[in-house]
């Protein structure tokens, strides 16, 4: 066993210990397990909300995207900032309503706001479908990190199984509390590693940032600006907008809102979180540094660029430290996603639709029992899928963004969207996303008559437009029906 592997296993064991220890002093009832007893202060909520910034998506996917695509990677830097601006007005009223009604999940919110258990069920199912690729990308990253950092002595497949087992154990025991404590450790570790690598790699290989970008511009002219076609400016604009709208629509992001003890926490976070996002610059710098140093990685292999460059540069013990940081970026978000998916199925599918008299204790036990089942499904998709990490996340985003129009409408003083309108809009939007994903369609392929600049629009926008049209039409029709119906008062 090499030194890299010892360090990776040591950190993983520490994460497991911390995750299990988080339950001490707390009676793990349903509210504690799912939303931490609504007792989290600024730091914990900040780290849970910022959790997505430092997942394997950014650690490997961000550097890989910069390595393989160049300028289009900038979208990762931009969308979070716009999402936090939106959150200033979006999250406080959601938090207030959730606190008043004692809500613990996103479908719970929809079911109450629109007075429609069926809508809650649909939102739960859309949430679970979107969370699977998100969990898959964490496991995929985990497999890559351990396999590469162990110099091949542990296969990617075995690494995925070990990682899934660790996440499953501490989620079953500690729920969101385990994730929160590990988020603290993870963010400190990854912050140090990413900043160090982002400064050291360009200095070591090129002598500085300017020299690195000069060399890239000479070797690959135009690589650092958006291309005229494909991942063009139009693609950037539509992808940033789509992902910014969907940022807080993930079941676990929505759920992290419920953990806060004060609504001002969200407004304060909206100031600081955009700056926290800037750490991603250093991830890009590593990817850019790798462009000319480890050339030739293609397709899904672009996600390996950070690790390949690290192995080429450092001793095994330090590769172990980098690998351990990477493992943490998979374990913490993975545990949040698993907690969310299990709660959605137990509380919002089982209790809300099949057995309404189920007690909190029964729901919690069912959620805990579902954790290994969901992990197993994600492991299967991980081992048999071939997408890049960024492609997996964008697929999930296309699904969750379908919930945005109904959420915004629900916050208006006079909600123009009826429960039938919201249901039909979300359903058609989700079906459109599934069809687009399965057929690997592009906007240019679907509508070849469109102007060239529009053909690069993110295809998820098509689903969102269909969703909006259906929501508006069905709401108009059902409101007319309500107006014509005799009053029962």
């Amino acid at each position: 066993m090499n030194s890299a592997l010892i360090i990776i296993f040591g950190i993983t064991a520490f994460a497991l210990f911390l995750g299990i220890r988080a339950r001490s002093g707390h009676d793990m009832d349903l509210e504690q397990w799912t939303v931490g007893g609504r007792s989290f202060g600024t730091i914990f909520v900040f780290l849970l909300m910022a959790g997505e910034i430092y997942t394997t998506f950014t650690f490997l996917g961000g550097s890989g995207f910069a390595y393989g695509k160049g300028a289009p990677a900038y979208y990762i830097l931009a969308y979070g900032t716009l999402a936090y601006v939106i959150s200033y007005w979006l999250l406080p009223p959601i938090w207030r309503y959730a606190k008043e009604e004692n809500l613990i999940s996103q479908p719970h919110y929809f079911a109450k706001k629109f007075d429609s258990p069926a809508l809650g069920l649909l939102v739960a199912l859309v949430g679970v479908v979107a969370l699977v690729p998100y969990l898959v990308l964490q496991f995929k990253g985990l497999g890559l990190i351990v396999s590469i950092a162990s110099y091949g002595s542990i296969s990617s497949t075995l690494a995925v199984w070990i990682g899934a087992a660790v996440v499953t154990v501490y989620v079953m025991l500690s729920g969101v509390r385990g994730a929160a404590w590990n988020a603290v450790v993870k963010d400190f570790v990854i912050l140090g590693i990413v900043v160090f690598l982002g400064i050291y790699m360009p200095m070591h290989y090129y002598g500085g940032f300017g020299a690195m970008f000069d060399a890239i511009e000479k070797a690959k002219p135009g690589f650092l600006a958006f291309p005229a076609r494909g991942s063009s400016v139009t693609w950037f604009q539509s992808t940033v907008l789509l992902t910014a709208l969907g940022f807080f629509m993930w079941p676990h992001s929505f759920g992290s809102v419920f953990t806060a003890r004060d609504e001002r926490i969200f407004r304060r976070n909206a100031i600081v979180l955009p700056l926290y996002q800037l750490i991603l610059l250093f991830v890009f710098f590593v990817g850019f540094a790798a462009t000319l140093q480890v050339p030739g990685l293609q397709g899904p292999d672009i996600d390996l660029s950070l690790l390949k460059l690290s192995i080429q540069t450092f001793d095994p013990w330090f590769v172990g430290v980098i690998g351990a940081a990477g493992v943490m970026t998979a374990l913490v978000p993975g545990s949040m996603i698993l907690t969310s998916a299990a709660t959605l199925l137990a509380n919002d599918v089982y209790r809300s639709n099949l057995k309404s008299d189920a007690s909190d204790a029964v729901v919690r036990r069912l959620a805990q029992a579902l954790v290994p089942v969901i992990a197993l499904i994600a492991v299967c998709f991980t081992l048999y899928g071939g997408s890049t990490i960024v492609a997996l996340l964008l697929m999930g985003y296309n699904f969750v963004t379908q919930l945005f129009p109904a959420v915004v409408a629900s916050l208006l003083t006079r909600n123009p969207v009826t429960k039938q309108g919201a249901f039909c809009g979300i359903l058609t939007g989700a079906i459109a996303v599934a069809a687009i994903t399965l057929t690997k369609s592009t906007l240019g392929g679907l509508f070849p008559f469109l102007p060239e600049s529009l053909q690069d629009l993110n295809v998820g926008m098509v689903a969102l437009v269909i969703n909006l049209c259906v929501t508006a039409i069905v709401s108009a029709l059902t409101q007319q029906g309500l107006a014509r119906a005799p009053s029962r008062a």
Partner: protein
Amino acid sequence: MPLRLLALLPFVGILVGVAFVNMPFVLAWIVGWIILSAVIMGIIYALDPSNRIR
């Protein structure tokens, strides 16, 4: 309402501005707007009466 109009600036700067400007210049432009966004949100927080301690 004026506060919400102020919050539109980052959207215009990042989404529309990039089309005009396309360290890499585009990257520097986005980073500049991220820093500006934090400043704008700080101003909004300071001016927003709902943040005053009741």
